[in-house]
Structure formats: C-alpha cells, structure tokens
C-alpha cells in the first residue's frame, strides 16, 4: 500500500501537462462558471482532444479509447482540473457513447461514434419528464411503431444544453401495457426532426442551461432504436452507473479550494486578510479534510476497478460527498465575498448576461449565481436521497 506514482505514471503526467499547456485554448483559460459561453467554446477543447485521440479515454481502444489505466485517467483529470479546463460534455462521451458501443449495432457504431469522439456532434439526454423526476421509470413519452418509423409524443425536461444539441438519446415507452420499468426503449433522435421543440428553462441563478423538450408526432426511423425494444431500462441503468464515475469532482473541487484561498487572501476582516481569521480558515481546513477523504475514497474505488471490480454502489458515496463538498465550496465562496454577493451580474450560463464590468471584485461577480446554480447537483443525476436509497438497498441490504 502506498500513495506514490510510478516513474511511468510521473512521465505520463509530464506528457499530459505539456500537451495541455501547449494546446488548451487560450481564450478559455481558467474556465469558471461563465454566462457568455457559446457552442464553439464548449466544443473547442473537445475537438483538439479528438484530433489527439484523447477525447474518449475510458472507451475500449477499438472504439478510439486510449487504453489508459484508471490511474492514468485520474492523472488526466487532475491535470485538466489544475488549469480548470472546460472538459468535453458528458452526454456523448460518457453517456450515449458507451451505450452505443456496448449495445448498439455496427451501423450505429459506425454512424455515431466518430462524431462523439471528434466533438462534431452535440448530444443531449432525454430522460426526465415533468411528472417523473426521481421516479424516472414512471415516464409517459410514447413511441408507437408505424411501419419503419416510431412516432414519438411526449414531454421531456431538464434536457441539459439541448438548445445546442444535434442529437438526443431518449427513453420512450414502447409497450404501454408493461409494468413501470418494462416496455421502455432507448431511442436516438435527430434534434432537427420536425416536431422536436426545445424551450430553455430559466434557472434561479438567471441562466439557461436546461430545457423543456416537446416531442409532437416526431417520426424516427426504427434503426435509431438501440439494442432490443422494451429493454431500454437496462441500458439506462448501465449508463447511470457509468455516469457516476468522476461525479465526485475531486480535482475540480481542489482547484476550487485554491481559488477560495485566493479570494480570502484579497478579502479583509479587521484590516487583515480573511484567510488569517481562524474562524474562516477553520472552515476551509474542514473542507480540505473532507475533500482529502473523498479523494482517497475515489482512489480506493478506482483501485477496485483496476482490480477488475466494476463500479459498484460505492459510487453513490462519491456522488453524495462530492456534491456536498461542491455546494459547501460555493457557500464558503459566497461567505467570503460578503457584501458584494448581492449585485446581480448575470446567470451562470446566461444568454442575456450583462457584459458590464462587475460591481465589486471580479471573483465576486458570480459567487451568488454559482451558489444558486450548484444547488442542482444534489438533485440531478439521481438526487442524493435516491443515492441514499441505493446504498440502503445495495450496501446495507435493508
């Protein structure tokens, strides 16, 4: 048992660090939560990585993966977080991609995987519905077979960044008589198909990053069905387990704590830097301790994967603690900026955000919006209550 990296791993870190330094888009340096992002910004780094062959490290090598060990993947995410890089969005790379190469047919692989790897095609996820949040299986969107098409009707919600998406993967009910989790199919939809309508939802931070998506008589060729009809729930569960890896966000939170320390060095209390105030410094230390614990917990999980165990229900712990730490981090940042948390300077991803120079210090401009925005993390991806239910069942055996 040891915490050291091998010489090979250290060399790999050097290689990665150099590559990032030389190739990461300058205009996206130290990306935080920003309101003025456009589609090209989100895809910029993805495209560079696609050319390098590093856009989908976790995929099997035959589909374009890097063949890195989990430790290498950990180093990779650490190095990206170190410069706060804007990583490829997960919807293609970590979600639909693995479903397609695991359950899809050869045509689907040939058609869709290249666009995901290269960053040319933007995917979104059509799972949640207005009446079905944590209770995903109660979804109502229907896909009715009509010749060699499905005709799809329903309403999806929380479709993240669907306003930019080319394609979406949707869960639809293909057998209305089956029980809740049966009779659901996993269908790929071209977002330009007539009948698909996307309407952004304004979030409480003022930004727009999720949408309501209406599907009205949308005709989708049956070859867009992934795997077997009515077995979509299996793929959805597979995807959720995949989604959880990396959800702890350790490397990014570490960078966040560094930033918090910087902010607290500029902010003052009684004429001294805020970080010199024991009361505040103690909260930062507590956060660092919780984060150190989470990091080792993630590495232990990773070691388990490296030893051949798949991602198990332990990853629910990563989700819970990871999001608690992210939320606590934004809360402390809010506290650090004090009075200047009040001015509204636009939402986190806001198409009508102000471009004025911020009132107060730059680092204060989005402290409140980020705090508000990050409340979502304990709700999405299976709320933290659902994660606790999973642990109850799968680990405690109750």
């Amino acid at each position, binding site marked *: 048992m040891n915490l050291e990296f091998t010489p090979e791993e250290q060399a790999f870190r050097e290689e990665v660090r150099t590559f990032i330094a030389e190739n990461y888009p300058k205009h996206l340096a130290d990306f935080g939560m920003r309101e003025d992002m456009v589609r090209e910004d989100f895809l910029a780094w993805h495209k560079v990585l696609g050319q390098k062959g590093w856009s989908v490290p976790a995929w099997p090598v035959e589909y374009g993966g890097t063949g890195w060990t989990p430790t290498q993947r950990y180093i990779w995410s650490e190095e990206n977080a170190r410069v706060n890089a804007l990583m490829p969005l997960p919807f293609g790379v970590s979600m639909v991609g693995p479903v397609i190469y695991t359950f899809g047919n050869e045509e689907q692989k040939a058609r869709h995987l290249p666009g995901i790897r290269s960053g040319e095609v933007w995917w979104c996820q059509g799972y949640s519905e207005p*009446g079905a949040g944590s209770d995903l299986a109660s979804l109502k969107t229907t896909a009715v077979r009509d010749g060699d098409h499905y005709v799809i009707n329903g309403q999806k919600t929380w479709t993240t960044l669907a306003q930019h998406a080319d394609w979406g993967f949707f869960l639809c009910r293909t057998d209305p008589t089956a029980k809740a989790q049966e009779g659901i199919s996993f269908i790929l939809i071209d977002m330009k198909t007539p009948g698909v309508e996307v309407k952004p*939802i304004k979030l409480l931070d*003022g930004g727009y990053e999720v949408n309501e998506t209406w599907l009205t008589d949308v005709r989708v060729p049956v070859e867009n069905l992934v795997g077997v009809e009515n077995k979509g729930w299996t793929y959805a569960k597979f995807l959720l387990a995949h989604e959880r890896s990396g959800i702890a966000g350790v490397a990014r939170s570490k960078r966040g704590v560094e930033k918090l320390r910087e902010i607290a060095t500029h902010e003052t209390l009684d004429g001294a830097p805020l970080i010199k105030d024991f009361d505040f410094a103690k909260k930062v230390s507590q956060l660092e301790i919780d984060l150190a614990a989470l990091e080792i917990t993630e590495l232990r999980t990773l070691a388990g994967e490296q030893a051949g165990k798949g991602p198990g229900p332990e990853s629910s712990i990563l989700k819970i603690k990871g999001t608690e730490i992210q939320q606590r981090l934004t809360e402390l940042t809010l506290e650090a900026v004090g009075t200047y948390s009040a001015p509204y300077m636009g939402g986190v991803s806001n198409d009508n955000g102000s471009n004025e120079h911020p*009132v*107060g210090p730059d680092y204060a401009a989005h402290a409140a*919006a980020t705090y508000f925005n990050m*409340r979502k993390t304990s709700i999405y991806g299976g709320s933290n*209550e659902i994660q606790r239910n999973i642990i109850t069942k799968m680990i405690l055996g109750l």
Partner: protein
Amino acid sequence: MDFNFTEEQGMVRDGLSRLVREQYGFEQRRKAIASSEGWRPEVWAQLAELGILGMPFSEADGGFGGGAVDAMVIMEEFGKGLVIEPFLPTVVCAGGFLKHGGTAAQKEEHIGGIVAGSCVFAFAYAEPKGRYDYADLETTAKKDGAGYVLNGHKAVVIGAPWASHLIVTARTGGERRDRSGVSVFVLAKDTAGVTTRDYVTVDGRRASEVYFENVSVPAEALIGAEGEGLALIELVTDEAIAALCAEACGAMKVAHAMTVEYSRQRKQFGVPIGSFQVLQHRMVDMYTAYEQAVSLTYLATLRLGSDEVERKKAVSAAKVGVGQAARLIGQEAVQIHGGNGVTDEYAIGHYFKRLTIFDSEFGNVDHHLKRHVALS
C-alpha cells in the same frame, strides 16, 4: 411577561396581509422587478395611506406612536410576500437615526416626508473593504467652514436607485477602524458630487454603488455629535437587524408552508413525496428551526430598549439563529422541490435567494457569533 399583540398590531397585520395577498402576487412582483423602475411606487403610496410608513414614529414626531414590535409585525408581512419596497432603509434606518439622534429641525424636515411617502431613504454605510465593521471607513468628511466635504465610495447601498435622500457614515477623525471619529450625515441624493451606479440585486431589489466626490454639506447635515456616531449606528443597525430578522421569519414561514404543500401535491413512485419519512422529518426540522428563529426575533425586538450589552447580545443571538435557520430552510426547501426548486418559474427559488442574501446584511452568522462571544 406578555407575548400577545395589541389589537392595533393585529389590525396592522391583517391590513398588510390583505394588501400583500391581493396586490403583491408573485407575477406582480416579477413584473415590478423587470420594470425599468424596479419597484412599485403605487404600493409605497398605499403603505403611506395605510399609516404603515408612520407607524414606528411617536405622535409628537408626526407618526402613529408605534415601536419596535410594530416594525416587527410589518416586516414579517413584507417577508411573506418578498416585498422589495424600501421600508427598512427608509423607516427603520433613516427613521431610527432621526428618532435617536436627530435635532428637532432634522425631524421636522424629514419625518413628515417619510410618513407621507414622499421621502425615500437609503443607508450608505458599507464599503468595499469594510466587511461588517461600521468603523472600518475610507469615506471621509472633512470640516470645511461650518460644513463638511465628503469623499468616498459606498458599496451595495440597498434602495439607493429609488431614494431621494441618503444617510451616510463617514470618518471625521481618528484612524480607520477607531471607535471614535465616526459621524453620520443626512443629505439629498441629488446633492452636487454624488454619483451612483445602479443595478439589480440577486434577490430582486435595486442597489447602487454611491460615490462622493467633494460633496459639500452644511453643518445641519450632521446627525448626532461629530465623531461619536458609532454608538448611534450600532443602535440603529441593531433595530434594523431585529426588523430584518422579522422579514426573514415571514419568508421562512412561507417557504416552509410552500414546501409542505408541494410535498403533498407532488407524486413520485405513485405516492405524494410528503409521505416519505425522510422528507417529513426534514420538514419538521425546518419547522423547528423556524419556531426557534421566531423566538429569537421576539427576544431581539423586546431587548432593543435594554442596556447596551443585553441589547447587543440578544440582537446577535437573533442574527445567528435566524441566519442559520434561513440557510437550512432555504436549502432544504429547494432540495425538496427538486428540479422545480432551481427554476426561476417557481416562487420557492426566490424565497431561497432572499434568505441567502439576508445573511450578508448587517453582519453574517460568523460576525455575530463573534460579537456574542465578545460580550459574554
């Protein structure tokens, strides 16, 4: 000992409650915030008409003889409706300075306008580097003949875009952060040399950065004795904190009730989410926190007239306890609302935002826990 409200207080509560319910709905508020003015002067006029703006002033000063308990009743109702109109800076803060420190002439000049609704005040005390220390001032007021010349920059002055007048704190002597040498001034916002940068706040109000560049004010602008303003500021801000806590209690009450109601309506897995014991107990903890917050608000309000140490301890206790409750209730309310809780469309998020910003007004939880320790 008596925890009952007077009949008159009950009437004020009922009247205000009706006004908020009937004329301050969520959509009306949203429209007001999005408008260029950003508030509803017509509501302000109604408040004047109902006597609300004159309530906490003595009859001798032209008011209706109420006190801190009346302010509490009023602010709680405002909290329930997330009312953005500047009752706190105008009536509680400016009114407080005039009541406790104003000369007969100053009262004469300003209180009438406040009561009638024609005068709106903002209280410019915070500074970019001052955090929550009222004495940590870079703004200066230099003696100039009989009057003073003000220079400086005040941060996040709530309600300033709507204000006709300002109360300003400035240093007339001593070193930065000294207890002595702090003075308080009253002036019209359109005094030469006063400029502002106006903006919306995250909780839907308006505020300004206020800049003073060689602003000349007469000797009559000084409230209280020169250089001895800090005790007066502490008294008035303690009153403001008690009122602010009442506002937060109103907002928490509604946020909690909305959450319970949502949990009754919203179904998941075929049953209302309010039937899940985990959410039940968390809503109980929210309720308990709310009740404790109300108690601390009562305590602070009823101790405003006590000796300085008792008053400060009670007020700090309230700001700590209410601040903690506001955080718990705001965060849990959003969590229990799930995805809908983080949208702009649902009212709950707006309660959450108001309850968040509450903590940073007049000193946060940490600041007041420190003050409580120092006084113990």
